[in-house]
């Protein structure tokens, strides 16, 4: 049984009396210990997909019209409050993009970590355990940092605290939603290294979300590329990095930011991700696709397996 199995997940946001589909039929699974990277530009639905795993998208405005999210075999979308609370942290933990906003500014970091312990491992809710966790994520002199408030730490240290807090409950799956995007370039590399190290040492699964294909090579076992609420390509990481098949993936790779040149990337793929509610007909990528054919604006492409384990949502994938 896979640790996580998402089947045909659909998510709508209710706006007025319209339903705007943000996630449209996403399916993928993760084995225990596996690291999957979800890649795509901003607004493609990566965050809402990832948050759905612990039902963290507020409903309303969100609605799940279809789909299943099987976590350890049971469907998260059918769980009651109590069950949800036990899987949040208990099976899946999160770290987010902006650690300064994700930590509560009015509580000491040690307290915030201890909260996680109290919820899931009450017998271990001690200062010693907090210190051990801070050490685990590479915070120097942790004894002196547990009484710090978040604002007394640098962004990198705050993200390490977030990671410590996520690990405190000993989850099987760590969801890291753009964990380095808000940090300085040098710190970005350190946080990625830490995640890689933790993955090796603790053997947990990581779902890493990023819009930067440049950082996934070392850590990912598999890659899933999302565009406009759908997965457009999915394959083992080395396979996809060596030979991307979907035109969108290729465009993304052509626009991998060099270290410290984040801005250049923004102009790399012409056009914008369509907003929810304004999806192009046919292939959703066709207005921006450098290889678009005349029928791409009518024919809706399916996600098909073109090689073992390699899925692509473009009938013209072989023409490159």
């Amino acid at each position, binding site marked *: 049984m896979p640790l996580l199995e998402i089947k045909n997940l659909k998510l709508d946001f209710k706006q007025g009396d319209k339903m705007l589909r943000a996630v449209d039929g996403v399916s993928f699974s993760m084995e225990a210990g596996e690291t999957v990277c979800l890649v795509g530009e901003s607004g493609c639905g990566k965050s809402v997909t990832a948050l759905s795993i612990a039902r963290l998208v507020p409903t309303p405005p969100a609605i799940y019209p279809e789909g299943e999210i099987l976590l350890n075999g049971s469907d998260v979308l059918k769980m009651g409050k109590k069950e949800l609370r036990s899987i949040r942290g208990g099976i899946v933990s999160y770290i987010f993009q902006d650690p300064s906003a994700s930590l509560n500014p009015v509580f000491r970091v040690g307290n915030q970590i201890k909260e996680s312990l109290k*919820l899931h491992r009450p017998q271990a809710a001690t200062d010693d355990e907090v210190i051990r966790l801070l050490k685990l994520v590479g915070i120097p002199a942790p004894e002196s940092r547990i009484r710090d408030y978040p*604002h007394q730490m640098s962004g990198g240290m705050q993200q390490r605290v977030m990671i410590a807090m996520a690990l405190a409950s000993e989850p099987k799956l760590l969801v890291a939603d753009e964990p380095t995007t808000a940090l300085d370039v040098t710190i970005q590399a350190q946080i990625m290294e830490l995640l890689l190290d933790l993955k090796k040492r603790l053997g947990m699964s990581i779902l890493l979300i990023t819009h930067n294909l440049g950082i996934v090579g070392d850590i990912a076992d598999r890659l899933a590329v999302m565009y406009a609420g759908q997965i457009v390509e999915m394959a083992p990481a080395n396979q996809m990095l060596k030979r991307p098949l979907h035109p969108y993936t290729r465009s993304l790779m052509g626009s991998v930011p060099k270290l410290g040149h984040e801005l250049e990337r923004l102009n790399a793929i012409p056009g914008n991700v369509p907003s929810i509610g304004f999806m192009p007909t046919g292939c959703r990528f066709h207005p921006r696709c450098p290889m678009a054919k005349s029928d791409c604006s009518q024919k809706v492409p399916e996600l098909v397996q073109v090689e073992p384990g390699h899925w692509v949502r473009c009938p013209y994938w072989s023409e490159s």
Partner: protein
Amino acid sequence: MWQYIAKRILHLIPLLFGVSLLTYMLMWMTPGSFYDNLKQNPQISPEKIKELEAKRHINEPFYVAYSYWLLNAVKGDLGYSLAYKMDASKLISTRLLNTFLLSFFATVLAWAIAIPMGIVAAVHKDSIADRALSSVAFMGLSIPEVLLALLALMLAASTGWFPVGGSQSPMYDLMEPGEKFWNRVHHLILPTLVLAASSLAGIMRYMRSNLLDTLRAEFVTTARAKGMAEGWVIYKHALRNAINPLLTIFGYSLAGLLSGAFIVENVMAWPGLGRLTIEAITSKDYELVVATVVMATALLVIGNFIADLLLAWSDPRIRLK
């Protein structure tokens, strides 16, 4: 900390100096004085008036008169009320107690009701409870304080449940201690309710919008993602942050109320500082005007100071300097 307090007190000195100078000047420049009224009183001899005028240096240049006043003020003597025939400081201190009682209970009451109301409205956004509370708040915001005070007086007069104005009965001095206490409380109830009602709506709406904003904050998602029960997420993580900006408002309202609840005090004949100020201005009791204004300024600043201390205590990101 002590350094900070000392600094704030030092800042108060030039402010009070400026305010007293300005008020004194304004009272000096406006036509007419209390003595003009005295002069029309046949029972007071012109010599007596001359003597009074000389004592207050009223016929000397402005800066001389002000300097004398300032010199006394520094020694703690804020001048003399001609209308009440007593020291301004003494007069103010009795009035201050009344204002303090009224403001204190009104503030406590308003906050004790408005904060839970705002929380309920935010947590159950768009529910029937939220809509009901919002309409109550809207009504509260649209009724002027004066009207509310008048309505309260009308209620008191027609039902006889409450005394109509004042802070104690005429027979107060003849009462037993227990009776005295009840008499004061009885007089205090209606003005307190009016004053509390007038600030309730604003606080409630502010609390509601603050909490709604905070509930959208990322650290709230973090708290949920830990597996924390929704009640804890709201009452520990969100509320603790949502309350911070309100502490500033609390300080300001405290400051405003301490310096005199002008409308309620005047309409409901509550002998507080606000009413005293208005009386002093209309009767041209100029030293009393200056004294009350200086006092109100000092209280305003102290209220703000308390707000800053509260905020610093509640929000670790804020440092006093």
